[in-house]
């Protein structure tokens, strides 16, 4: 029952099997620890946990392969882990360590992994949208059938780049999947106050991008929508916009006073918890029994424990590295 979140194994595993559950549980555990690391001073700057939103990254990634590109946002660890990033190296980056994917230069908001097609988590809300559109353009121009995914939040849908990218992707039929994680808040701003037309799908449709709503708390639903979108993209039929209805259980980042929402609302959403839901489904359909479920939970814990150990014991980068890798000096 131990599942390592590595590129090699992950894609063999069926969505109906235990691995989606394990991956979601691992991400949950991983992300849940971040506030503590922040409090302990292990994390500097901002880190944005995605607890509650695991089904989106996992569901989408199920349809992807290593050569596909992903451009993520500030709340992006789940996107990385689901695409196959190693939890230890991801956390090491978040803690600014030498063994982090970027040698500690990037941190939580700048985790890129070239061999996994991860074009980076991103500190600029909306910026990944342009990058993914470009990766899709590259795939198309080079004649591969790779696709690209842009993950972004409801808040990012108010950035003009999304409209531009929708249009460009639509006219060129670029193989890009725009995934909006609509968690109803942009930092402290509520979706209701920040948009007048809450049916975000219509933004994609207005530019000619086929657009679907999906229950972002249901990994199977996400994975089905993503599979369809990826299939469309791979076969040259162009982009899709997926709006996943989801929620973040924790604050926007460490120190969030959360004056913009009620504790009741958070509890209500927990009633739709994607992990509990999948677990119940697997149990009900006798794919797994209670003992196996427990084993999965334990294994997630173990995996994150060892990631933590790995990251914490990784040394800080050598100071000289601050001055290298700015440009390739090919001359």
């Amino acid at each position, binding site marked *: 029952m131990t599942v390592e979140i590595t590129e090699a194994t992950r894609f063999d595993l069926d969505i109906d099997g235990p691995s989606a559950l394990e991956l979601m549980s691992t991400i949950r555990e991983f992300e849940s620890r971040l506030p503590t690391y922040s409090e302990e001073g292990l994390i500097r700057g901002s880190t944005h946990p995605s607890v509650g939103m695991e089904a989106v990254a996992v569901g989408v990634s199920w349809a992807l392969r290593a050569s596909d590109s992903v451009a993520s946002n500030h709340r992006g660890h789940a996107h990385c882990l689901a695409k196959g990033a190693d939890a230890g190296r991801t956390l090491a980056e978040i803690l600014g360590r030498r063994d982090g994917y970027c040698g500690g230069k*990037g941190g939580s908001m*700048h985790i890129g992994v070239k061999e996994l097609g991860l074009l980076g988590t991103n500190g600029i809300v909306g910026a990944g949208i342009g990058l993914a559109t470009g990766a899709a353009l590259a795939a198309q121009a080079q004649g591969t059938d790779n696709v690209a995914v842009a993950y972004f939040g409801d808040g990012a849908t108010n950035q003009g780049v999304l409209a531009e990218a929708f249009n460009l992707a639509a006219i060129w039929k670029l193989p890009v999947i725009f995934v909006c994680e609509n968690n109803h808040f942009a930092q402290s701003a509520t979706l209701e106050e920040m948009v007048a037309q809450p049916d975000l799908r219509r933004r994609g449709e207005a530019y000619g991008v086929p657009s679907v709503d999906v229950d972002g708390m249901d990994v199977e639903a996400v994975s089905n929508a993503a599979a369809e979108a990826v299939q469309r993209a791979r076969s040259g039929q162009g982009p899709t916009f997926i709006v996943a209805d989801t929620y973040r259980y924790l604050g926007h980042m460490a120190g969030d006073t959360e*004056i913009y929402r009620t504790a009741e609302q958070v509890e209500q959403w927990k009633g739709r918890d994607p992990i509990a839901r999948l677990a119940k489904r697997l149990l009900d359909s006798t794919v797994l029994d209670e003992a196996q479920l427990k084993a999965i939970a334990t294994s997630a814990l173990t995996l994150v424990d060892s990631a933590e150990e790995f990251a914490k014991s990784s040394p*800080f980068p050598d100071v000289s590295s601050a001055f290298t890798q*700015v440009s390739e000096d090919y001359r």
Partner: protein
Amino acid sequence: MNKPAQQLTIWRALNAALHDEFTEDPSTIIMGEDLTTWGTGGGIYGVTRKMADVFGKERVRDTPISEETLISAGAGAAMAGTRTVVEIMYSDFMLLGADGLINQAAKSRYMFGGQFSTPLVVRSNGGSGIGKAAQHSQSLETLYAHIPGLEVVVPGTANDAYGLLRSAIKSENPTVFLEHKALYYDKGPVTKELIPLGQARVAREGKDLTIVATQLMTKRALEAAQVLSAQGVDVEIIDPRTLYPFDMETVFSSVRKTRHLLVVHEAVRDFGWGGEFVSNTVQECWGELDAAPRRMGAARAPIPYSEELEEAVIPSAQNIVDEALATVGRHTKLTV
């Protein structure tokens, strides 16, 4: 005119300036992301605290994440007669609104033959030091100082923050007002007097070397001055406070006295604003300099995340000491 000074943090001083200016002038508005709903209701660093309670949601607006339009609409509102403050959460994001600032606001008076005023203030923060990494830590003030029509303010103390923000809002010209994210909790006396744009502040008097520095670098230069003083180098520190309009006269007269100049900024050294100060000084004070002026700035690198790396790319107090000694021709201690 000397009112009794209060001790305030920089964010409090900025908050007070906004409150006072909004009270005085009902044609002022402010907009930005999370201005009234974050933290204790005062934006990401608290600067807009209680503004909505006092002035209402018509004048104090939480916005969607749409920097391009916030800045260009800010320009339009200003051209239409409303003194407009736009808060951009981090100055790195101002690049999304570069067209509104550089192609529109900065040129609106000139292009239209002097008809329009554009009393727009784009407030934001720059600087590194708290682990926000490459896209939340840049010091990009030089970009704006290069653009005709823009004013650029970089306050480094609570008093300057208060007095300059009020002047910036009163200004008929578009102003880029860049706070420093690592200094918001710095405390200092605030007299609540207006400070005109374009007047440098002598942060320390001295006779051997003029150091021009802003914000965090002024603080570090002051630390360095202690060390240098013990080594017999008496440093004068000038904080220009505004990069445009700039007050070269204060720099020139200081250099005429000290005969040595070192400019220190957190902006990247290459093509940074230090070059402007050095070049002007060289041209104006050629015969009065005993040695070549020098410049310090961030390394030619994005700001890295990991703490020691972040520290390494910007000038430390020790770096300033070393470079100061090199400037006055005392190379023994030079380690960088």
